[in-house]
């Protein structure tokens, strides 16, 4: 068997390049906790309204004891519910998504808020939004004839503006 010296050298360079990528990914995953959104949790899509968590009055952003915010949303042909929402920038957000019907996908352009929403499973994404402004929330997986009409709006405001808007009722502004 004959393998050229040059070829051998190139093979080890290739291994090095692939190894470098793997090292970067492993470092960011294992030491910085940067992961693809993964959270294996099943749910009965046909009974969402009867579930504690995704009943209609529990949807939208809710403050957690630790200061972060959990946003619960339902995707169904052809819209995301609730339809509009205001969220704070620079805050730990946990999005939890479920589908009423078929597979959808959702992302906010130019952010890493992105996930597939598969019926029967709860999709969860943790992220921080850095820039304020109005963002569309788009369905990115073909879900039927109305796919291109499936979108909602998210308004991102500064953390202090959001706190002002979401003061518990009856607390005075001093």
């Amino acid at each position, binding site marked *: *068997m004959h393998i050229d010296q040059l070829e051998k050298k190139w093979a080890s360079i290739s291994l090095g390049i*692939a190894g470098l990528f793997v090292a970067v990914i492993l470092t960011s*995953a294992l030491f910085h906790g940067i992961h*693809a959104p993964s959270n294996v949790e099943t749910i009965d899509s046909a009974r969402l309204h009867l579930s504690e968590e995704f009943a209609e009055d529990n949807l939208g952003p809710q403050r957690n004891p630790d200061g972060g915010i959990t946003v619960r949303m339902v995707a169904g042909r052809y819209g995301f519910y609730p339809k509009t929402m205001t969220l704070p920038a620079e805050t730990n957000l946990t999005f939890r998504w479920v589908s009423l019907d078929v597979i959808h*996908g959702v992302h906010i*352009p130019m952010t890493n808020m992105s996930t597939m929403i598969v019926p029967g499973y709860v999709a969860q994404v943790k992220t921080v939004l850095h820039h304020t402004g109005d963002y569309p929330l788009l369905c990115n997986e073909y879900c039927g004839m*109305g796919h291109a009409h499936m979108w909602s709006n998210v308004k991102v405001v500064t953390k202090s503006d959001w706190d002002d808007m979401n003061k518990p009722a009856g607390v005075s502004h001093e």
Partner: protein
Amino acid sequence: MNNAVEKKLALTHLWVAFGAFALAAVMGLYQVVERSGFFGFLASREVYYASVSTHGVLMGFVLTTFFIMGFGYYVATSSLKLPVWNKTFAWTGFGVALAGVVMAALPLLGGAASVLYTFYPPMKAHPMFYIGATLLVVGSWFWCVSMIVMYVQWKKANPGQPVPLVMFATTANAILWLWTSAGVALEVLFQLIPWALGWVDTIDDGLARTLFAWTLHPIVYFWLIPSYTAFYCLVPKQAGGFLFSDEMARAAFILLVVFSLPIGFHHLYMDPEQGHGWKLLHGVGTFIVTLPTFITGFTVIASLEIAGRLNGGKGLFGWIAALPWTNPMVLAMILGLLMLILGGFGGLINASYAMNAMVHNTAWVPGHFHLIFGGTTIIMYFGIAYYFWPVLSGKPLFCKSLALTQLWTWFIGMMIMTTPWHILGLLGQPRRIDSVNYNNLLTLSWEPYEATMIFGGAILLYSSGLLIYNLYKTQIGTETYQGEVEYAEPIHAPTDLPEYLNSFKVWNIVIAVFMLIAFGYPILQFFLMETFGSGRWGV
């Protein structure tokens, strides 16, 4: 040897492949025009999604499968100097696959299978679509069996001899395809068909997506291997030189077969039904499969350099100018490599575990695969067609300069169409939309890119027309041509080849172990935890 029967078998397959291609190319232009929204009278989401579904099935499944089968039959007989094993069996495979295509085409064209070519439940197509798609795959299994039987026949008759590289690669592809198609076959047979026919009420979408992911990455290598085969076994000879290394070529094909299988999860990076440990494992595997492509790039460019220098090219880059740029197959490979470099970069981003979130399911993704598949892979199919048509039909190529124009226009059209697609993805445009309805400032910035894409699409359709015209004129020509395809010789003929570079026995065991590690628990989990199925939804 008289291989007229084999030539007819191969040519018939290739005509079905390019017939499907021509039809799909027309739909491609319609789609970029429709989704731009510039021509209001064309707007129809029903027609758009039926067209996208049909375009995908024709390009991804029909063109590729029939091309690979036709190519394989000719390669096997000409390189092994054996007649096709059991001709009735081979024609039966052709008939089954073609019947499947016709069956799937009816609901597709009628809008009853607008579930796109990835057919993710619980959106349900007409059962005939699933049954037709299954028959296409079953027909291709006939071809796999033929290839493996001929490989074994030759090895028995020539003990200890290295199998010709071109046949080694083709058999590698047959084995790859049997392993690859098993995932989607399980999904279709045990989930989709019983559910579409109403025998069971619900379907587990998470399991269906996992089984499909099993198929979804290696299928790309099934499509790519004939192009790589041409890189190694045809182009060096056409360019006037030799193959740099026969052994490394074999190693590259083995790496492709072994490592493309257990990495399909990168299509599920954004999915909720699999945990991140498994995704990370598959992510690491995904980078291993870049190795055969790096090796291929090096070996084929080294082979081109040898040819360029033999043709009199001097200096560091002089050999590039000395290559026969007017040989369609050499030109196809040069243009194909350029697109592979650009597309490969995009692929690294898709494959990167965390970067994927930015581009997942945006217009970036169709931009990427049109560059790699529609570009690199398909342009080599064209190059092979120009070389094979005279041999198979016994008539000289109608017009070489037309062939060169066709290859250049395909390259230019692909660049013009896929560049804006990538940019639209970064700007957040979702994939697979028939129109832009988002009432948002951001989406206004998408328009100039849509216009550019129409221009690219028009060039591509023109290029497709040139290809079909040239092949058709060749076919009906009156002059005769005699000749066989000639395969490239390696600089060093392989001697004392170890059995692991000449046989797949050990590799099949390795694949089985890898598959069990990579997909065993991720599939088993659906039977261990409580899952909730979905009913049937129309489109």
